């Protein structure tokens, strides 16, 4: 059985990566609304993903308003697709092991 990426396997981080995989880039507010996490929690998960090299975070301004942009890195894309593939492989019916069960009569 291939090892699952523990960084991605955490539900909150998986949700963040799934959201980012369907957009080019998104800001902190969008991720906050869509994930339902608290600001602190989201920041922590984003930091963890940035440390793993899966997301790129850019702090910029739109007019006078600060904007934190987050996008999936190439490494993040590969890791996310790899994770999905291993989950699919893991859950595929042909890969399910048939365990003989003894039923006493």
């Amino acid at each position, binding site marked *: 059985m291939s090892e699952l990426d523990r960084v991605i396997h955490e539900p909150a981080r998986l949700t963040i990566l799934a959201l980012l995989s*369907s957009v080019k880039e998104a800001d*902190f507010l969008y991720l906050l609304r869509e994930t339902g996490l608290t600001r602190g929690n989201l920041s922590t998960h984003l930091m963890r993903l940035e440390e793993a090299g899966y997301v790129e975070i850019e702090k910029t301004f739109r007019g006078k308003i600060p904007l934190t942009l987050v996008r999936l890195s190439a490494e993040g894309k590969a890791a996310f697709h790899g994770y999905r593939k291993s989950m699919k492989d893991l*859950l595929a019916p042909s890969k399910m092991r048939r365990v003989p069960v003894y039923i006493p009569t």
Partner: protein
Amino acid sequence: MEPRVDIDDVKRNAQRHWMEDGLSEILVGLLFIIIGGGLLLKLALPRWLTLDLLSSALTAAGALGLSWGFKKLKERITLPRSGYVVLPEPTRTRRMLTFGSVAVLGLASALGLLTHVVVVPVVAAVFAMCFLWGGVQYKQTSMLWEAFLTLLFAVVSTRFTSLSGVAGVLALMVMIGTSMAILGAVRLRGFLKANPRPQETEA
């Protein structure tokens, strides 16, 4: 072991987010009105080159102005309330498919093959199918309403008006556009109520 995250549903959120404020519905609706109405006007006017050029230029300017206004409204209304998102550019396959369909339609139209096919019920059915697909795919109730209204307009148009062929289809476009713009405006009102600007929330 499997985290309870529906990845496919989460991935569809970006498209839902793009539509939740109703602005895109208003934009498409107004585009339908401008293009359908402009072409209807062109059919009604005498066939002078100057008038033809003028109405085409006005239609194109209206469409361009609308998409510019749409971007500005998105920046002012949606982004401060529900966040900033950039959708990915369409894939090469999708671009090729769009280009291919436009090319086929253009060729068929140039060869005069469309005059027999362009009938209100067929066009209405195509539109209704598109709305139905969008409504189910992105869980948008308003798109299901659009599908229903499109079929209703087609029935009204064929049974109670004398419009048929290209003129009938253009009139149908105007009707669909009007209903889309209205449904979009209702949705925008709901969005603004549910999502006050951040500083308004803090105050």
